[in-house]
């Protein structure tokens, strides 16, 4: 486990050069390792992914999100999480709010397919070179990029539907009351 830091550092240096620095590694309460590294531009992700595939790293998950928060987003990021025999390496890619584009990793990792389709349908991010970029989970009748359009809710805990049901509950109480 201790040499995962050195191995990853070597691989990143090989792909991106020495001047870029190493991932920040953290140990959780049980000693589990997670490494955090920020990429420079979208072209770097397939390069690094290919090198990680050479280490038998598994693409574990891809998380897209808006920063600093969904309500007042000024930018977006994608975090690619890789498993290295129990340790997790997260490569974070900053993207603009408008015109975000990333190359597909499906050439390197077959299981990138669904991950990319998913963030593509939930966010305004274009995936270049995806073999099958259609909707995956979200019904075609729903708007695209739902995570960007539906976030500014005025009432976030009890939405409109809840309000309507509560009015019915209230009405039923008044009927019962003498």
């Amino acid at each position: 486990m201790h040499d995962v830091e050195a191995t990853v550092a070597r691989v990143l240096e090989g792909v991106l050069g020495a001047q870029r620095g190493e991932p920040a590694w953290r140990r959780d309460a049980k000693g589990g390792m997670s490494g955090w590294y920020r990429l420079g531009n979208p072209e770097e992700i397939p390069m690094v992914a290919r090198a990680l595939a050479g280490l038998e790293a598994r693409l574990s998950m891809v998380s897209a999100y808006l920063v600093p928060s969904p309500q007042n987003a000024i930018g977006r990021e994608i975090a690619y999480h890789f498993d290295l025999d129990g340790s997790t390496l997260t490569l974070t890619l900053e993207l603009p709010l408008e015109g975000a584009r990333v190359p597909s990793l499906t050439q390197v990792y077959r299981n990138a397919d669904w991950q990319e389709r998913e963030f593509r349908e939930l966010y305004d991010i274009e995936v270049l070179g995806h073999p099958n970029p259609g909707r995956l989970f979200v019904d075609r009748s729903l708007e695209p990029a739902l995570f960007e359009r539906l976030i500014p809710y005025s009432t976030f805990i009890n939405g409109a539907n809840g309000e309507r049901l509560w009015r019915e509950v209230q009405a039923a109480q008044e009927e019962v009351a003498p």
Partner: protein
Amino acid sequence: MHTCKVPPLPKLRLYRINTGSCNGCDVELAATEAITRFGLDRLGLSFTADPTQADLVLITGPLTVSSREKVLAEYAEVPDPKITVLIGVCPISGGAFRDSYAVVAPLDEFVPVDLNIPGCPPRPQAIVAGIAKAVQLWRGGEHPPVSPGPEEGSLTENLRGRMRYRAEACVGCRICQHVCAGGAIRFDEEEAGLGFTLWHNSCLFCGMCSHYCPTGALAPTREWDLAHRQAEKYRQVEKGVVPRIPCSACGVPMLPVVPELMKKGYRALSAETARLQTLCSECRQVRSLEGVKRCTT
């Protein structure tokens, strides 16, 4: 000898539709079907995979945008007359998933519903008891409901059934509402005091409210047979009012401090704590400061 031959009642067939559930209600339905002890058989019921052969429709899950068309088409295939039974709070109120962009529950906006069986998920005994009521509806009420099967091997003392609320122990801190994922709890400022309403058809029976309630004003009961007719849907509530009392010093209306909370703060109740209970927070502060002064001088 006189024998009265009662013709056996025709077997009724059940058809299941999953509209997008967490699979909890469906897995429990599968167990209800597989385990004879639960007694579906005794009710003269069997499942069918053919909607055109069904008499009763059992529906689980919060209707999703994607499943809506298929579900409604499937439902339409079941010939009329039919009895429609909703299983779990998902189809009844949307349950935990209400207000998602992808969910269009409650189901009664789309199909006529006869009976609701709340729970998340309801235990098989509750499902069977509910279906028994549905069968009674189907048969026009002349046949008494079949009593639920014996509780072989079940220990039910910890069961998380219907939640119970005691206004006399409530301090109005609203923490229950804060932690409730079902949106099942409401507080209203009423003339008489602070009104509390818990709608059982929105409740997920998770017990978070009772876990975080500082005074034990909320607690789960063991009542699990909560099936009710559609007309009763919005009447399934737990209600109470925490009355306001005038502060014994300044007269401003306030929520009384309940003994449960005083016990937490002071370990033992005394005449002094009893007096504190009748004071509003400002007067309480004044009095405590006096106490401090007494101690320091």
